[in-house]
């Protein structure tokens, strides 16, 4: 069997890089990889990515974590940030960009620093997810600090309709609470404390719903 991209087929004991070094591996054309001194990588970003790479048997595995680090530092995966990560990881920038563009949470275009994902999937749709998304969009209208987007199921259909605000889950939300949340973020206050998922108990411990069943 020929060396498959990235897999140490010939000898599983070898680190991937060595096992497949004879083949053409995407993202590894030396002449296209920027040198560290050319990219002006902030030392803390370099250090962070190097620590991430050390956690894996193959440093390539750190590409998503490295892109998270870039996004955290610059607010989105900027071309410069991607070049810096590429120089540290010894990849072509194009390779890292191709990875970043695959994933919904990594942004290759500028976005506001406050990110709100509103779920519009089946269970949230039934309970008003579309209306909630409209409400968030209206409340954040014209403010470049905010990035509001509809999103697929976030894994919290029990609190439908819900939204992820700054990577934390809130629900069930009423459309009017969108404005409250945005005002709270602007004022630097805690966001919708009574609606945070982390504050909830197990569903089975709540009083049974009244009425006939």
């Amino acid at each position, binding site marked *: 069997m020929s060396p*498959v991209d*990235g*897999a*140490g087929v010939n000898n*599983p*004991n070898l680190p*991937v890089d060595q096992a497949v070094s004879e083949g053409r591996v995407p993202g590894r054309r030396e002449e296209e990889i920027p040198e560290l001194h050319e990219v002006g990588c902030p030392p803390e970003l370099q250090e962070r990515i190097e620590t991430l790479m050390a*956690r*894996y*048997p*193959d440093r*390539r*595995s*750190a590409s*998503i*974590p490295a892109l*998270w680090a870039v996004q955290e530092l610059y607010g989105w995966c900027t071309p410069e940030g991607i070049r810096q990560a590429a120089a540290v990881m010894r990849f072509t920038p194009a390779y890292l960009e*191709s*990875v970043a563009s*695959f*994933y919904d*949470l*990594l942004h290759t275009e500028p976005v506001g620093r406050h990110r709100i994902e509103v779920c*519009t*999937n*089946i*269970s949230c*749709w*039934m*309970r*008003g997810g*579309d*209306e909630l998304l409209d409400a968030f969009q209206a409340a954040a209208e014209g403010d470049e600090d905010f990035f509001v987007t509809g999103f*697929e*199921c976030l*894994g919290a*259909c*029990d*609190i*439908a*309709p819900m939204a992820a605000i700054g990577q*934390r*889950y809130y*629900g069930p939300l*009423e459309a009017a609470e969108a404005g409250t949340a945005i005002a709270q973020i602007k004022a630097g206050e805690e966001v919708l404390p*009574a*609606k945070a998922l*982390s*504050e*909830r*108990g*197990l*569903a*089975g*411990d*709540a009083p049974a*719903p009244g*009425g*006939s*069943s």
Partner: protein
Amino acid sequence: MAHELETRVLLEHAEDPALRTLAGYKRLAGGYATQERAYREMEQDEILKELEDSGLRGRGGAGFSMGKKASFLPRGDMAKYLCCNADESEPGAFKDRELMQRNPHQLIEGIAIAALAADAGHAFIFIRGEYDEQADILDAAVAEAYEAGYLGTNILGCHRDLELVVHRGAGAYICGEETALLDALEGKRGNPRLKPPFPAVQGLYGGPTLINNVETLSNVPRIVANGAEWFKGFGTEQSPGTKVVSISGAVRRPGNYEVELGIPTRDLIYGLAGGPDPGHEIKAFYPGGSSSPVLTPAELDLPYSFEAMAEAGSMLGSGSIIVADDRVSIPHMALRTARFYHHESCGKCAPCREGTNWTVKMLERVVRGEATPMDLDIISSVQENIMGHCLCVLGDSMAMPVSAMVRKFRPEFEAVIETAGLDPHVVVSAPAETLGATV
């Protein structure tokens, strides 16, 4: 107090936030005692046999025997890996979130024991990027476990090593498919691989790899502690054990409920989740997440087990019930479902890439009233042609529920075509009060 219909094993003590800490896990649940016993006293084959005898079936969707899968890994001193699948991105599924949030150490202990059974020296928890809070909780728990010597080098002085890394994804449902997960973990775009070779033979970095779901691995400590016979005391013969079931949609008390497999589905939807709002009736439900063919109220009394759901032409999948009541438009629900798979299709193979795209466009025409009843036949035949022809199961995951909806609710599709222009979308109920909240 949990409802009498619940059987909390994995979620035992889960209402207590102290369970999240290593000290709390030890005090409340006798945590890590099983790992100590396994590492000090048990042989690899002994653990494998216990897992296989227990009949534990994978909780991530396919329901394959966990012990069998672990025994498929070749022996020898090549590097082997264990990946815990915590991607949980199928619409309707949110049980792994609960298990990681409330009982992270149970999962870590399960991983440590399963790694011994699979002889893996490196383990990863691949968690969806959206679960940032749960990933933070896992990070803290993993750090505690390293500190206490349950992970790392020379664990418990037994000359065994295990590194465990919490790896955050970045938003792509397809990464839950096991081979796409491997590519994502290798730092690439998450495209599925052709199987065979199966991951057990050639997985992460080309090495033998055991991939199991969060809930599957969370079951491991108790099975090894109490034995296969104890585990088989729960559930049915073909579906032993308990299951954390996520119930959402048009029910009054949505949430996660842990029950013995095989209880009547009605008990889950009505007894535990409270059924639909008063004055409304169930029209359809997905029994196993958005990729399962929908069932109708006539099937509410089926036992909730792998075998009963398969016999009814559907599947238990990851164990997520989504309920639609009489206010929900099935054609619109079919469109939402198809849109999800279209958005998440990785595009590697044509039947899925083109089929999901085409199905969305056709269903849009249906709800706009621009289709003809004959188009419904074409939609169905296209679904037939997607099924079984894709590289991974994502294509089928759209085709199965969509074709079931068209088949079982055809008059409603035809009516929607007739009444074009009306938007039948209604909000099921005002957002439930703070049901489930204990604060």
